[in-house]
């Protein structure tokens, strides 16, 4: 029996992900001039009927964008030509309250991605983004009755929560964070605003969905979630996009405010198509006794920079990050997490798994920072990497900075390959080699998939199965 772990000879077929790669011809879509100038940003702001402060904010962000340089670390993004990417595409339809009023082809797109089914189950509401504008939005009665606000971002800027938004918008992730945060500040469009009042526990998850369809379009949605004291919410973000020849950019931003004793779980299964540049910024600020749980599955994109950051600013704040990254052929996924302990008795746990296959590059990058006043804090990091062949790369770059002695910081990392003994064991039970390797990889990903709601766990296992086909 030949040894199939023979690095140089592993045949890797192009992954058959065609069930995710479908699109519709663009209709009479309105489109920005490519490239980024003050005129374009102003026009964008006017078209969106921004309040004056937002227009000013956009222009200031543009100035910062032009000032900042791209990072000197991480995957090379020099092939991303900003001047060619249109930043705004609006489909020819207005905001919809009811599913049956949404245009057919847009509906079909979401239907294929399973949203109506999801709607029929216990989900509270769905905000679905299609090319920079929310086209469908429905907040369930129960949710609305409890005072939970879940709306698209644009209308929220003029609604009763306008002041709250102004106070929080890009205060956690400021345009100065990095160049693509500044870009976001200038051209953001679409996204969700969620506010959960004091003590309200939503018993089912809120879900949002993104889509990117137009050639060369960028995606800059903004998610702002504010949980008041003692609130509890699970928010699911899942996305997909079809394949194009022109580079696509996703520079979204997620800001999460978790107040005293509140609890937020933020789950994402990201499956952007394989030509996408995913330069996303996610940050949570956690107050006293609050908890943020990130669950993240990264499968798509050509290049990804993704490090959800948790700022633990209140005593006994807690953060958990559970993530899996699967980098296949042509992908360079640089992901991880940042835990900033800035108050006493805070705690964080990072558990990540990464898989590299077919020439994919997977980098785990993290930072655990414990400030001088964060006495009594605990941090633990556990990262495991699986290499499926020798064309691929897997790098682990964890950093820890500790500025006080009353801490407990533990870190462990492992890298290796699929155990031949484990493959033999499974095969001795009649399971084929391909299936055995797929099962082992799914088993490897299990700690993450079991944190996701069922349909996402299923999607994740399907994604793994698709990725694993063609390994032999």
């Amino acid at each position, binding site marked *: 029996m030949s040894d199939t772990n023979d690095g140089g000879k592993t045949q890797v077929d192009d992954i058959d992900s065609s069930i995710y790669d479908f699109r519709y011809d663009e209709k009479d879509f309105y489109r920005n001039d490519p490239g980024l100038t003050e005129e374009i940003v102003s026009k964008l702001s006017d078209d969106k009927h921004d309040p004056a402060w937002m227009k000013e904010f956009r222009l200031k962000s543009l100035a910062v964008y032009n000032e900042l340089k791209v990072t000197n670390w991480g995957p090379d993004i020099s092939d991303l030509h900003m001047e060619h990417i249109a930043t705004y595409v609006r489909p020819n339809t207005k905001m919809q309250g009811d599913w049956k009023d949404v245009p057919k082809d847009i509906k079909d797109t979401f239907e294929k991605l399973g949203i109506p089914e999801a709607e029929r189950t216990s989900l509270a509401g769905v905000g679905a983004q299609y090319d920079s504008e929310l086209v469908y939005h429905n907040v369930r009665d129960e949710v609305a009755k409890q005072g939970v606000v879940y709306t698209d971002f644009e209308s929220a800027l003029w609604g009763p929560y306008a002041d709250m938004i102004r106070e929080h918008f890009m205060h956690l992730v400021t345009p100065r964070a990095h160049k693509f945060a500044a870009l976001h500040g200038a051209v953001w469009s679409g996204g969700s605003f969620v506010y959960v009042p004091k003590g309200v526990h939503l018993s089912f998850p809120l879900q949002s969905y993104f889509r990117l369809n137009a050639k060369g379009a960028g995606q800059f949605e903004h998610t702002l979630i504010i949980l008041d004291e003692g609130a509890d919410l699970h928010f699911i973000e899942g996305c997909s996009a079809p394949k194009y020849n022109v580079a696509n950019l996703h520079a979204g931003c997620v800001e999460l405010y978790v107040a005293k004793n509140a609890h937020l779980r933020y789950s994402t299964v990201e499956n952007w198509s394989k030509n996408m540049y995913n330069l996303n910024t996610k940050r949570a600020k956690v107050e006293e006794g609050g908890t943020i749980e990130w669950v993240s599955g990264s499968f798509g994109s050509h290049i990804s920079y993704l490090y959800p950051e948790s700022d633990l600013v209140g005593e006994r704040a807690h953060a958990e990050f559970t993530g899996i990254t699967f980098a296949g052929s042509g992908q360079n996924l640089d992901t991880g997490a940042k835990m900033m302990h800035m108050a006493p008795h805070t705690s964080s746990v990072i558990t990540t798994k990464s898989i590299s296959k077919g020439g994919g590059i997977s980098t785990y990058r993290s930072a655990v920072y414990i400030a001088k006043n964060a006495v009594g804090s605990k941090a633990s990091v556990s990262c495991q990497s699986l290499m499926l062949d020798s064309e691929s790369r897997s790098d682990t770059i964890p*950093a820890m*900075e500790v500025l006080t*002695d009353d801490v407990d*910081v533990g870190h462990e990392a492992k*890298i290796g390959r699929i155990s031949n003994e484990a493959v033999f064991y499974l095969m001795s039970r009649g399971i084929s080699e391909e299936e055995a390797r797929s099962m082992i990889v799914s088993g490897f990903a299990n700690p993450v998939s079991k944190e996701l709601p069922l349909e996402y766990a299923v999607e994740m296992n399907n994604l793994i199965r698709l990725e694993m086909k063609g390994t032999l």
Partner: protein
Amino acid sequence: MNIDTTINNLPILTWNWLKINNVPFSYSAAVNAADSTVAGTLPEGVSYKADAGSDTGAYAGIATGVGKNTDSVFTEAKVRTALITAKKNVHVSAPVLISFDQADRSSTASAQIIRAEEGSSVTVIISYTSPESASGFQAVRTLCSAGKNAYIHLVKVQLLGSSFTQIDDTGTFCEEGGRVEVTQIILGGKETYAGVAAALPSYQSSFKSDTAYLCMGEQKLDMNYIVRHTGRKTDCKMSVKGTLSGNAVKTYRGSIDFKSGCAGATGNEQEETLLLSPTVVNKSIPLILCDEEDVAGEHGATIGRLGEDTLFYMQSRGISKQSAEQIMARAKVAGTAALIPDETVVTKINNYLDKAFAHE
């Protein structure tokens, strides 16, 4: 001489705000060459050359941990590189001792090449001492080249005065079946920059590194360890243990780089840091880079205070908290010092520790 650069560079960059990608280093004063003379008699089977001269060429390709940016310190000082060679198939039983006893306000640079010919084994112990509160500068660069199935044990013990700045740069290279082991004890100095780079390009070569340190008061320690696996079935084990107290600042970079082709390689890196004061600064970045499927790598780090259980146990035996902390700090050093095959050197280490804790 004038130098203003960055040293102890990470093989791959990360967030700049962490200020861990490298460390800035500048120095502008005269640096004198200091020879690396062997103390006592040269053991049998070892040959010694005070100035390797053109022989250094054969070893020029060996990368070091602190890095090329400090080359100018050695060239401008016109350092004479000593060459210590263990002859083929000779197992040198007695260690080769090189002692640098630095005078107050001295500013020197020294270099050595240790070559173990095929089948030989040799231990070289280099120690650095000076008067207790001496100030000064010292740069040392040591290259180790282990021939086929040869073994080199390099020991470096730093007991410099409390105002000294030191750059201790090491680079190793192994031929097939060759092994290099580096044992380091770093207790003194005000600012120490220690770097070790190990190249494992040959089949079944291996590298082991054990470092123990104690940083107290205003001491700063900046370390950079990197092992590059390119040969098949190569192995490395790195261990760094130490204690920080007072306002000490310590940075540890440990990288295991599995390059394409190193099938069957294994690497293990462990770090243990005991923190004894609320004003210390500890930065750690244990890296694993991997370009080869058939490897197994792991690293672990534990950073924190004296465990409450351990403390309680000791207190129940009448040991005060402060004593307990000292006992643990000494234990970390003792574990590594146990690897040093020379009683005199170990005694010096213990004496130094006695004095250091007496001041606390």
